[in-house]
């Protein structure tokens, strides 16, 4: 590409270092602050004031920190789900739908079997949530493995089907008493215990444990190694005797189940009932988070926390500066695009050469 008579030349780095990754992330954040600052200026608000206010909204109080952790849970679950599939170069765009499916499974069993003791009901809610989400994983998995159907498209379509199915249930059989599209509440004795007398629930540990298990599975186990081979080349995997089809299906199912756990936790930890906006785009956010964290499950955890901070600062802006919720999406867009652009520093040397 030529700018003012200079070529921009990109040279791929042989090794990417932690310091260059940090530099990339840092410049991405700075870039996004500058860009979103312009939006505030256009809106006649002082950007510095907003940024400091947001910073304190997130880190300034125990409430802010626990809220950020709370939102990080569903994002991390979806991002970990996407990351597992990405290990074998499969794009699971369907985390959103799988999240909904998990929530549905937990919600339906919670409402219909509310007479069971909590010792039975909680495991039942988890099992059915996971089974529901697995259905949305096994379909694209089988289609990809058997017919090589593009998984991006299938999972994308399944998102819509899952959401519509949830709406069907909420306006139909599951509708609560007062004609709004909400289900009845699940019994109180199934609610997850809360931490620090905030809204944060113990589900946060479940997600952390999943991430740690995934880390060892992906980086240290033999199966994880096989999967990485598979991700590099189906041919190589076949020569090495690694079952390509079996693994594609298995990984899609595992991936879907992890996103499903996110949905389950959202139902029994936060909302305690089903409602149309339960997923809120967490699945799509998760895709980008997974990519930003370069598929490292442990990195995913803290990246999710940072992105969750965006949501929290967004709701602060809503209250303090009466900005609409859509500002969160604008930020997400700006942050993702800026980090994406700066990511070039991770993998490439950039130099200008005279024509």
């Amino acid at each position, binding site marked *: *590409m030529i700018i003012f008579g200079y070529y*921009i*030349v*990109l*040279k*791929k780095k042989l090794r990417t270092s932690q310091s260059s990754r940090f530099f990339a992330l840092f410049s991405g954040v700075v870039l996004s602050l500058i860009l979103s600052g312009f939006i505030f200026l256009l809106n006649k608000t002082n950007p510095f004031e907003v940024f400091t206010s947001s910073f304190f909204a997130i880190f300034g109080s125990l409430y802010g920190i626990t809220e950020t952790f709370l939102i990080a849970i569903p994002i991390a679950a979806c991002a970990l789900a996407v990351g597992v599939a990405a290990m074998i170069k499969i*794009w699971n*765009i369907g985390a959103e739908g799988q999240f909904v499916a998990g929530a549905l499974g937990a919600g339906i069993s919670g409402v219909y079997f509310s007479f069971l003791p909590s010792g039975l009901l909680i495991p039942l809610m988890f099992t059915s949530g996971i089974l529901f989400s697995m259905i949305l994983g096994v*379909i694209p998995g089988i*289609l990809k493995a058997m*017919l*090589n*159907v*593009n998984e*991006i*498209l*299938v999972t*994308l*379509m*399944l998102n*819509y*089907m899952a959401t*519509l*199915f949830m*709406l*069907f249930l909420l*306006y*139909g059989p599951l509708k609560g008493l007062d004609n709004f599209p909400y289900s009845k509440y699940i019994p109180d004795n199934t609610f997850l215990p809360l931490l620090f007398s905030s809204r944060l629930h113990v589900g946060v540990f479940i997600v952390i444990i999943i991430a740690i298990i995934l880390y060892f599975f992906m980086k240290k186990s033999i199966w994880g190694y096989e999967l990485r081979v598979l991700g590099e080349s189906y041919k190589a995997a076949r020569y090495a005797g690694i079952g390509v089809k079996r693994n594609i299906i298995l990984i899609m199912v595992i991936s879907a189940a992890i996103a499903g756990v996110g949905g389950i936790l959202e139902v029994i930890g936060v909302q305690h009932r089903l409602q149309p906006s339960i997923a809120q785009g967490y699945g*799509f956010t998760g*895709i*980008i988070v997974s*990519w930003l964290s370069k598929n490292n499950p442990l990195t995913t955890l803290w990246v999710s926390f940072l992105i969750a901070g965006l949501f929290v600062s967004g709701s602060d802006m809503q209250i303090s500066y009466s*900005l*609409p919720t*859509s*500002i*969160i*999406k*604008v*930020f*997400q*867009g*700006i942050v*993702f*695009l800026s980090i*994406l*652009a700066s*990511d*070039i520093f991770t993998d*490439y040397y950039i130099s200008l050469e005279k024509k």
Partner: protein
Amino acid sequence: MDILLILAYIIHASTPIVLVSLGELVSEKSGVLNLGLEGMMMIGAFSGFYVGYLTGNILLGIVASVLITGIFSLIHAFLTITLHSNQVVSGLALTFLGTGLASFSGRGFINTSAQSLQAIKIPLLSNIPILGVVFFNQNILVYFSYFVIFLILFFIYKTRPGLELQFCGESPSTSDTAGINITFVRYKAVVFGGMMAGLGGAFLTLADSSPWSDQITAGRGWIAVAIVIFGRWNPLLVGAGSYLFGALNSLQFKLQARGIDISPYILGMLPYLFTIVILSITSIKVISKRWGAPESLGNPYIREDRE
């Protein structure tokens, strides 16, 4: 009589998807997947609405939405072509930014409508029995969409720039050797895709007489992505696919009108199910060989990495 009006409505309602998916087709032919269609449509819908509403001039609104969305799509072009960023991630981020910006800027206009394009009867053609009512009593953007289907068909298969476009998507390194400026071709293709998405968005606010809302695109951008693949990157099939989708969508209302008691949400799932089925059938090896995806779709071209 009744059925003809329904068919005419299906043609009308499918037009935004026709426009958007044809733009995406060109972009994908050059090797760049753009999942940001939903966001670009929102930008197009809002900028068309805004300019149309302020000036009272529909044409000006359409021009504005095409230009602004074209410029907006440069973000995706710059990231994926120049900086070699991941196309899936960039497209998703573009959707966030586009829907966010559009609903943020449009927050004061909810439920306001701009003026709307009226149907124009084409003399002679509109007198043809059946076809006349269905196809030739539409607004000008619908006529434009017919034209674009054939224009792109001709462009891709019969002109030199069209063949170069295909080369870039099939084998960038060969095209580079042949002296084609891949960067430039891909930029043009992505911006064209952006402009068409803008036009599709403008259709919703300026031709469909829908009032402005945050949900105005209602997932049409995602559908368009599916339809390009469903139509195996062939302009005629992509056009047909869009109409089929529109037909399935209106079947929903038709059945309800007949008093058949199926939840609209369950019926709403049908088009997506159908797309999955068609995708699976067309992925069977024998069929996909003939109508496959551009070989290098999704891959940035880096001259220094060439093997």
